[in-house]
């Protein structure tokens, strides 16, 4: 499917940085990361665009940087979206198998998926993903591929992720304004999970928490399928903001302090940190214990809120592989211990396991989303035209719907 386009680019417009990852799809459908470009982000708050022009400049810079590093020209990207407005739920669709043999064909499968995706969402929302979870044939649970089975009733569970159309469009418009085409979009948590989780992890059950600059995006896999996802609009910016307020220092110093001395481990022995003189700022001494306490409270709270969500969904018992934390905040000192204490589960500070490449990018948790987008490209190419002839009847219908969805996004 990707014969013409061996190069795929994942672009994440994040709160703290814009990053573009260039991947090469090898013949065995493995992915090699050949270049990464990034730029400090400006004009994004809590995962959402607040200044189109500024974001446009950052995207341009990141793409130019990636082009240089990978030595390719980038014309189109796969983009991630995030923001506190993104919601999700699970839905079930049903069809009656109504052909002569009483055997389920791909047509029925398409039909039941369409049925499951026909959901009621708020007027101003649009579906970003409708991901199949499992099928039921005549009530029999846990069927992964029902094609060829005999049965009278086929049901399908899907996980539907939707968000406010205009807000999603803001990110898309920013990318389009720098003359880039968008192949497809994915929510950040889904992309990150593709980068971090292997299929074994997905089978065992795992939660991926992508703690970025402005949001904490999480997604839960249970028995190989997505069971739940969500966005909590709290991220590294909040930690910095708390520090700035708590220690009475400006944001940029707070950010620096967080990176250089910050830890979420608390209580700790107190050490006095001397802040170096900066123009217009007097020498200051701050207590590392106080710093750690502020950070500890915020991060613990964020993790607990996510845990509460998972508890509400009854998913905590199904996380055999444990908790995977990725995103920029995964670099916080002491996070593993804290997360273990909060969840009572094995915690992995995650980076991408699922791609290869010579760059150090794959070792860095903050690139997970963009790397995941490259993997997403494999399973969600833009081109839907190679539908097998048997499917054509349905393929046309799917295409119509795809076009409608694209029209929403002004593709």
């Amino acid at each position, binding site marked *: 499917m990707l014969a013409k386009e061996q190069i795929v680019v994942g672009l994440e417009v994040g709160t703290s940085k814009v990053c573009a990852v260039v991947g090469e799809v090898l013949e065995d459908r493995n992915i090699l990361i050949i270049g990464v470009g990034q730029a400090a982000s400006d004009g994004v*708050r*809590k995962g959402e665009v*607040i200044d189109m022009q500024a974001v446009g400049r950052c995207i341009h810079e990141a793409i130019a940087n990636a082009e240089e590093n990978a030595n390719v020209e980038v014309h189109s990207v796969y983009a991630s979206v995030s923001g*506190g407005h993104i919601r999700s739920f699970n839905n079930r669709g049903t069809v009656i198998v109504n052909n002569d043999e009483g055997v389920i064909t791909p047509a029925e499968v398409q039909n039941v998926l369409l049925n499951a995706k026909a959901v009621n969402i708020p007027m101003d929302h649009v579906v970003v993903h409708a991901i199949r979870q499992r099928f039921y044939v005549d009530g029999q649970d846990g069927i992964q591929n029902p094609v060829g089975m005999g049965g009278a009733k086929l049901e399908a569970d899907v996980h539907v992720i939707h968000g406010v159309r205009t807000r999603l469009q803001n990110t898309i418009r920013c990318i389009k304004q720098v003359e880039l085409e968008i192949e497809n979009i994915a929510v950040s948590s889904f992309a990150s999970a593709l980068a971090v989780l292997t299929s074994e992890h997905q089978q065992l059950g795992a939660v991926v928490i992508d703690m970025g600059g402005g949001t904490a995006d999480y997604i839960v896999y249970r028995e190989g399928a997505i069971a739940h996802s969500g966005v*909590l*609009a*709290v991220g590294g*910016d*909040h930690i*910095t*903001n*708390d520090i*700035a*307020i*708590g220690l*009475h220092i400006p*944001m940029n110093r707070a950010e620096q302090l967080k990176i250089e001395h910050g830890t979420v481990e608390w209580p700790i022995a107190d050490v006095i940190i001397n802040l170096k003189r900066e123009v217009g700022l007097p020498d200051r001494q701050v*207590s590392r*214990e*106080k710093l750690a*306490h*502020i950070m500890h*409270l*915020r991060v613990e*709270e964020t993790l607990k*809120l996510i845990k509460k969500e998972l508890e509400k969904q009854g998913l905590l018992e199904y996380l055999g592989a444990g908790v995977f934390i990725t995103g920029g905040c995964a670099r916080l000192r002491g996070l593993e211990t804290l997360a273990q204490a909060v969840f009572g589960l094995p915690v992995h500070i995650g980076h991408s396991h699922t791609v290869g490449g010579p760059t150090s990018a794959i070792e860095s948790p903050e690139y997970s989303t963009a790397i995941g987008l490259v993997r997403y490209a494999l399973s969600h190419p833009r081109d839907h035209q190679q539908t097998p002839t048997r499917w054509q009847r349905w393929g046309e219908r799917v295409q119509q719907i795809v076009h409608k969805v694209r029209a929403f996004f002004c593709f």
Partner: protein
Amino acid sequence: MAKPDKSSTAGPDAPVTTLPPKVRVKIVGVGGAGGNTITHIAAARQTQTRWLAGVELVAVNTDAAALESVTGAETLQIGAPLTHGLGAGGDQEIGARAAQQDAERLTAAVENADVIFLMAGLGGGTGGGAAPVVARLAREKGALVLAFVALPFSFEGERRRQQATLALEQLKAQADAVIGIPNDKLFRIVGEQATAAEAFHKCDELIGSGAQALWQLLARKGLINLDFAALRMTLGGKHGDGFFSTGLGEGQHKAREAVRALQENPLLDGGQALARSETVLISILGGPDLTLTDVQRTVEPISRLAPRAHVIMGAAIDDEFRGKLAVTVIAATGAARSVPGKPAVQTVVVRPGQPAAPAPQPPRKIQTVDVQVKNARTQLKQETLPLDNVSRGRFDKSEPTIYDGQDLDVPTFLRRGIRLG
């Protein structure tokens, strides 16, 4: 007067030791908007039997025609020689003079009451001009005066806004508590598509339900009684900004639903308003099946949102509320805050004939001192952080991240009131 010792205990901080056997409540609507609210309450009483039962309703206006349209309430036209019954024409000066001319009749209308709910729209002439006078007269007669006032839409223009701000200041100086409802927030309640009539109707409904909730606290036989003295002690003499919000829940999770509905009320500013409050009154109305757990589940999240506040609560039982729970929160910020855009010249109405009573300004000073003392005790919270603007820092202008009624943009340690270091 029924209670001759009343005037001596009328001061805001005077302790009330004896309770009246039955609290006498009057609702006075001043001006056009006030009259509409009175009409609304009168109409609502027709349908809901227990709604503000036995409460006297009085509508006061300069405009005779507007008074004629008020139904189900006693009416009182003021300033007839001045306006010839044609209304104040948006001039607060005329409204105030009209009220002063008819001070005796107004006094007669407001006496023999323990609590006066004053309803007015502050943008207009009569509402803005006469309401502070009525508040003063009522206080002189020993009543606790709680004003529910509507503030004009911003599209009504700068002049009306300024008038309203001035009137609000004057009213705060006279009434025990002023609960302002910015009409702009109505948009968020009724939606953009609502007709003007619907919007104003909603405003009347809101004000009516606020009065109802307070009255219910005082008059109903309660599971947990909230008495007049407690109300007076907490709201009396605060001269602060007030706001209120209501929520209704049904079914198994009625407490949670009610609290959620309460928090979603735009008048609460997403819980921000509660964080600033010094006094929070929680009124719960439930059916005979109301359990203490329900009460706890309702009160606990609200008091968590208002960490600095003195919380008083009452719970009442109504047979019609079986399986339902209605919660109303009335909160007041304590000290007078400087109002942005406050007119440079502040008109203060001096109360004549009450030399012992302090002029409107001194109580504020006392209040400020009081707050400072408090700050010394809970040094962490307010010493250098006026919660209004600084605490959200970088996220000041962004949409708040509300989760379970908490604004997650505010630092965790501040929200939990944890002392650092």
